[in-house]
């Protein structure tokens, strides 16, 4: 493969700032109920951060604040070298640009059902001004990368859950984001599909993709993540290297969570 070809298929954008995501003093409430309380999180380039914790503990809300799908009540947030939120307001002018630099993969895939796999991967590119030819070229390369070239013109309803989630990952990569967000990407999948999706995610990790991952797959987090954050009751209760947080937790709540996890798996 030539250098030029390698360049076009590179998933990770070169020239990344060292810190891709910096979140400080993040608070968020829904209808007066505090769901995130003074959260701090820094994600460095090429690192994988796994957020774990009980359902309803604020993990997903934290993730959704990174691309401003959820507006914090208060925070200072910096994404891909730009301050996107300060105090109680959005400071980034171009919300679309932020979304383009942050890819997101949802629990329920959320593929566009009226479009084929390849069109799902093309749509955002076309809207961002990429030419038809280049958008198609990149979409096909990304589908190959997630092992789905043979399903390129299939519709979501014709695909298994694992295939849909792999297309969703390809779609999230289409605009060469600086960071990928995963919101429980395997929670609605059967074991076989789960391992398909985890394999693709592991390959992305090996390529140096920066990722924030909300997950219940603790073995995967232990294996792949550089940093594990345990969130409970809207606060970061404990964080550290996977071996520490998952292996020798210090906080009672982390211990309790891991014990209940072990009991149910």
């Amino acid at each position: 493969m030539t250098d030029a070809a390698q360049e076009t298929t590179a998933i990770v954008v070169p020239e990344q700032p060292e810190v891709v995501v910096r979140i400080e003093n993040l608070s968020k409430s829904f209808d007066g109920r505090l769901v995130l309380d003074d959260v701090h999180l820094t994600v460095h380039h090429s690192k994988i951060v796994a957020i774990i914790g009980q359902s309803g503990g604020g993990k997903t809300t934290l993730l959704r604040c990174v691309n401003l799908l959820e507006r914090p009540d208060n925070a200072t947030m910096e994404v891909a070298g730009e301050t996107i939120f300060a105090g109680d307001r959005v400071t980034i002018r171009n919300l679309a640009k932020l979304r383009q630099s942050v890819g997101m993969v949802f629990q329920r895939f959320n593929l566009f059902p009226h479009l084929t796999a390849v069109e799902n991967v093309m749509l955002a590119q076309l809207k961002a001004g990429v030419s038809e030819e280049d958008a198609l070229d990149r979409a096909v390369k990304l589908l190959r990368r997630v092992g789905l070239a043979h399903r390129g013109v299939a519709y979501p309803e014709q695909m298994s859950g694992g295939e849909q989630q792999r297309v969703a990952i390809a779609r999230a990569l289409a605009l060469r984001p600086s960071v990928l967000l995963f919101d429980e990407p395997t929670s609605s999948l059967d074991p076989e599909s789960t391992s398909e999706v985890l394999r693709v995610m592991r390959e992305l990790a090996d390529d140096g993709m920066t990722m924030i991952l909300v997950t219940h797959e603790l073995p995967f987090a232990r294996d792949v993540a550089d940093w594990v954050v345990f969130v409970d009751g809207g606060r970061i209760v404990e964080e550290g290297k996977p071996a520490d947080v998952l292996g020798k937790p210090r906080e009672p709540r982390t211990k309790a969570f891991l014990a209940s996890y072990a009991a149910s798996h």
Partner: protein
Amino acid sequence: MLPKLFEVPWSDYAPALLDGLQRTVSYTLASFLGAAVLGLAVALLRLSKHRIMRLPAAAYTEIFKNIPLLAIIFVTYFGLASVGLRLGVFEAGCVSLIVFYAAYLSEIFRAAIAGVHGGQQEAAEALGLGRVSTFAQVILPQALRSALPGTNTMFVDLLKSTSLLVTISAAELMSEGRIITSATFRALEVYLVIAAIYFALCYPLSQGLLWLERRIRAGIPLSPKRRRRLRAARALLAEKGAPV
């Protein structure tokens, strides 16, 4: 009795019937287009976050759904003329059909748009699509799919309802039928023929729309642009790509 049934010199009336047919088609197309646009606007208002937008839209729908079309036609044509707003027959006919059918279509569209899963909006936003693109490329195409059966029914219904415009002498098919009847006194024969013409219009139309529905549901691309795109995609996907 049968030989006596057909005595009207139909060849003499063919040009008039053809003219009426053309008018029926014009009324149908113009009114349906207008009703679809107005219906979509009303549906969007009803889905608005703001009560002040929702309320008038809901009132509109309820009012026009619950009064007969004939009353709307009379108010538009005779009623408005009596207070100085004189609409032509074609305008009055179209306006009546538009405001009446927009009420029904807005209900169909509203349900269809509301039925698109919330995750679709989020996925589009997360990809950096703007409000307009999100609606036009993601929400609307999915809503149209689920709105298609109801919309198609309304389309055929609207075509048949143009016959009510006979009451304002709209010179469409039914009006021509009435003129031929008064010239020949052969009501049974004439109206059977008129009915047959309506059937010949509506049956293929509804079958055609069903066919269209099935094709769309099967995921067959309709626009040449999409067909080209998918052809190019197939060709590229079939190539042995370099491993990435």
